[in-house]
């Protein structure tokens, strides 16, 4: 029931729109089924499944808007919800930044729905957890993991002619494997739209290997090192940069993309010329939603091309004020890479540090995008193209902008948290202290 077809969703939305007497009216209908299983100490701790189907109605008079929601769908309930939204709108203060609703839009086709994921049941989840716990138990390792699957749809419509519908599925899996004495720890994460691509057993093998290989870590002096960031580690710093590409903040001079005198870095070469980052909802490996929450189409957008800042994202209000295209913020990104694998990058490294993952990343300086955080769950010293020994975790203080100017090599992108991210080899990455944490 939670996933309505396009036709079923449109029927409900049209009914809602017909009930309204407001200047503008929009309806957003969404349904989700979310399941999860969590385990720790090689035993399942919690698992559950929730269903949700809800309708949100926004009515607008002039620059006043009001929203009401409901999860019952008979005619009387729908009409009541429309009236409630209208009442709230009439009482609301004017929003000086209100922009009228969009009319009909063209959307790209994306394919983010997989029946294999929509069909996941409690037995599947238990098996997935078992497939991860079992090999760990056998080798006296301890697994703590989490898998969450989601299938759902979103439909938008308004009285200006806009209608949008998308259905999607996703499955996210991660596991931390620790040695029984707590001196080794490894991690792996996987995410897909299509659950048939997920094998928790083979994924867990990687975390197990890292746990075993990270025992008896040696302490290296903090300082500047060549690092190879696995995609999971690279992802976290790069996505933090992408989240700061709001054009208004840049125009206002309070972003890493701002400059003195109200100028921005748009059009400037800010990163190494090998860095090209774009987003594309139709990418078959990381399909996104064809539309943003307000109905704006998501299209292919290049954010950095050969290191040059090509686009920023905007609210519709600010874009109109500045006379620029109101590009919405992207769902996920594609960091264009080469053909080298992680193993190839290691092989070509004389001296360096392999980083599995970062942890507790926080902004230190929003102007330079300086972040701090730590390595975790598998940090290794590389010499003459080989992993030599595990090293103790480091705290870093580094900016993705500086890091992406110190690029040595870019590997082949792999799907990581909804984006395509390559492993990166970076020189002079700044580690500022050691951590005893395993």
């Amino acid at each position, binding site marked *: 029931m939670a996933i309505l077809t396009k036709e079923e969703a449109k029927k409900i939305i049209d009914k809602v729109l017909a009930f309204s007497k407001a200047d503008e009216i929009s309806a957003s209908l969404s349904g989700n089924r979310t399941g*999860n299983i969590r385990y*720790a100490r*090689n*035993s*399942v701790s*919690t*698992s*559950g499944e*929730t269903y949700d189907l809800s309708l*949100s109605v926004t009515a607008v008079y002039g620059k006043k808007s009001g929203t*009401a*929601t409901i*999860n019952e769908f008979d005619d009387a309930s729908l009409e009541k919800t429309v009236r409630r939204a209208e009442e*709230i709108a009439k*009482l*609301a*203060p004017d*929003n000086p930044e209100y922009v009228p609703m969009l009319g009909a839009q063209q959307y790209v086709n994306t394919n983010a729905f997989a029946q294999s994921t929509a069909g996941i049941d409690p037995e599947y989840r238990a098996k997935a*957890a078992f497939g991860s716990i079992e090999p760990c138990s056998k080798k006296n390792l301890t697994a*703590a*993991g*989490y898998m*969450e699957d989601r299938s759902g749809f979103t439909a938008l419509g308004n009285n200006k002619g806009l209608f949008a519908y998308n259905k999607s599925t996703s499955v996210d899996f991660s*596991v*931390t494997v*620790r040695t029984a004495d707590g001196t080794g720890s490894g991690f792996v994460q996987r995410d897909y739209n299509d659950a048939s691509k997920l094998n928790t057993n083979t994924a867990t093998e990687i975390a197990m290997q890292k746990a075993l290989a990270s025992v008896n870590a040696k302490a290296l002096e903090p300082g500047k090192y060549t690092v190879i960031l696995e995609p999971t580690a690279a992802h976290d710093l790069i996505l933090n940069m992408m989240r700061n590409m709001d054009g208004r*903040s840049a125009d*206002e*001079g*309070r972003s*890493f993309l*701002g*400059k*003195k*005198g109200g100028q921005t870095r748009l059009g400037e070469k800010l990163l190494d010329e090998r860095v090209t980052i774009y987003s594309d909802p139709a990418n078959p490996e990381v399909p996104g939603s064809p539309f943003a929450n307000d109905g704006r189409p998501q299209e292919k957008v290049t954010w950095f091309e050969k290191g040059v800042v090509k686009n920023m994202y905007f609210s519709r209000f600010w874009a109109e004020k500045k006379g620029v295209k109101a590009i919405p913020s992207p769902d996920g990104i594609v960091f264009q890479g080469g053909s080298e694998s992680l193993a190839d990058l290691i092989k070509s490294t004389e001296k360096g540090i392999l980083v599995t993952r970062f*942890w*507790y990343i*926080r*902004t*230190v*300086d*929003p*102007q*330079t995008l*300086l972040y*701090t*955080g*730590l390595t*975790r769950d598998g940090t290794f010293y590389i010499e003459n193209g080989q992993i030599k020994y595990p090293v103790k*975790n480091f*705290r870093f*203080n580094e900016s993705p*902008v*500086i890091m992406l100017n110190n690029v040595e090599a870019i590997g082949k992108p792999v799907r990581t948290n909804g984006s395509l991210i390559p492993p990166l080899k970076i020189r002079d990455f700044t580690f*500022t*202290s*050691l*951590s*005893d*944490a395993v």
Partner: protein
Amino acid sequence: MAGLGTGAFMLPGFATGRPVSPEAFLMPGDDVAMKKRLADAALNAAKSKGASYADVRIGRYLNQYVTTREDKVENIVNTESYGVGVRVIANGCWGFAAVVDAKNEAQLAKAAEEAVAIAKANAKLMKEPVQLAPQKGFGEVSWKAPIKKNAFEVPIKEKVDLLLSVNDAAMKNGANYVNSILFQVNEQKYFASTDGSYIDQDIHRIWPLFNVTAIDPQTGKFETRRSLSAPMGMGYDYLQSNPADKLTGVTTRYNKGYDMLEDATAASQQAKEKLTAKSVEAGKYDLILDPSHLWLTIHESVGHPLELDRVLGYEANFAGTSFATLDKWQSKNFQYGSKQVNLIADKTQVGSLGAVGWDDEGVNTKQWDLVKDGILVNYQAIRDQAHIIGAKESHGCCYADSWSSVQFQRMPNVSLAAGKTPLSVEEMIKDVKKGIYIIGDGSFSIDQQRYNFQFGGQLYYEIKDGKIAGMLKDVAYQSNTQEFWNSCVQVCDERDYRLGGSFFDGKGQPMQSSAVSHGSSTARFNGVNVINTARKI
């Protein structure tokens, strides 16, 4: 993890529930007799299906937040969420089911049956049966936060006018931009269990905050200064400060009443001053940490590592584990900090975010020592963990962020006890040769076992030969938890004691949010490593 980042405001999934008009907040929820009928239906159904224990939480959660920038209201969000969660033990295993907008006994009985079915299914994968610490029933009882003025009864216009006047004061005093927010929460919770408790509670929380930005047009550099307010377990009365709530000094700091207008005025001037402040020279300094800053260091380096579920490995895949392992506690001589360091867990302190009469599994709340005279003496444990540390009862720190979430161990208020010897901040600073005085919380990061951390602040003042020598910028300190707390040489007396706290502390998968306070007086830490965070891009 404390959930709200520095710099720009990042709103977490705060306002869950359906949007409502503000007047809906003033409607009473279901009466107690009705809630007892619903709860009994669930408890009886659970027992009849074979549960050895069951509890029911009927929750009505009200949230309101008002956001503004400069002279504009950005958003006013009012939400209400109502439903029931039923938790059972059957065949020695936990099971949970929840139902939205539950209106009748049949829905509750069905949820209880589902919870029992889930428990029985999960029991097949279980390694050890759940052991619950005994808990007596309290009969029909209630608890209300002792607030003076219910924030939900204050007209929206008054709140909007306050925030816009705060923004106006900021802009007139040199800010280029200002954002301000008022968060308000009311949890109306009813708990019943097969132990014979029927507990009705009314909890209020409030957090006014702002962030001002000052830009130097010559260089394009910008600096921010965030409010020195604390989220509190109070009503709108927190915003009605009186002189007794203010501590004057290099900047005014606040206790149980907050003067937002005054703080915004100071913040704008200080953000401008930061633009030309001296960049810190990296090295070792004696740190004087104000309670508006120290709360977050306590939260991350004491509150989280002493959560027993982390210590045992239940959070290994997300928040992490803990350096404070059971053997260190068992040794009875693990020197967590210096002799000056007494860290206390508490669920009763008036005005704190953690205060309730009973926790979310019907345990009456209390206060207990975590670190006494520097030695690790205890953890935070709930009913199904108490036996692991040889305790006969739970500490009463179980919490769920919604009727639809499963309750689990959450951090109580964890506070540094005030010094016993009379000592003011001025007297403390007088003895410092080379130091930095830090006020307000800033950037924060700590490893997954809670050894290595780095913290920034809002305001940094250089101390030279016992005197404040001027403002610094680009400051962050790095240390190791045990080293840091052992470098604590002095804590000011109770005259300086204040609360800070987190409104959005995250834990668990799926993640749940909780609110927690941390009190302290200003404290001195000797020889801490300070780094310079200035970079060029």
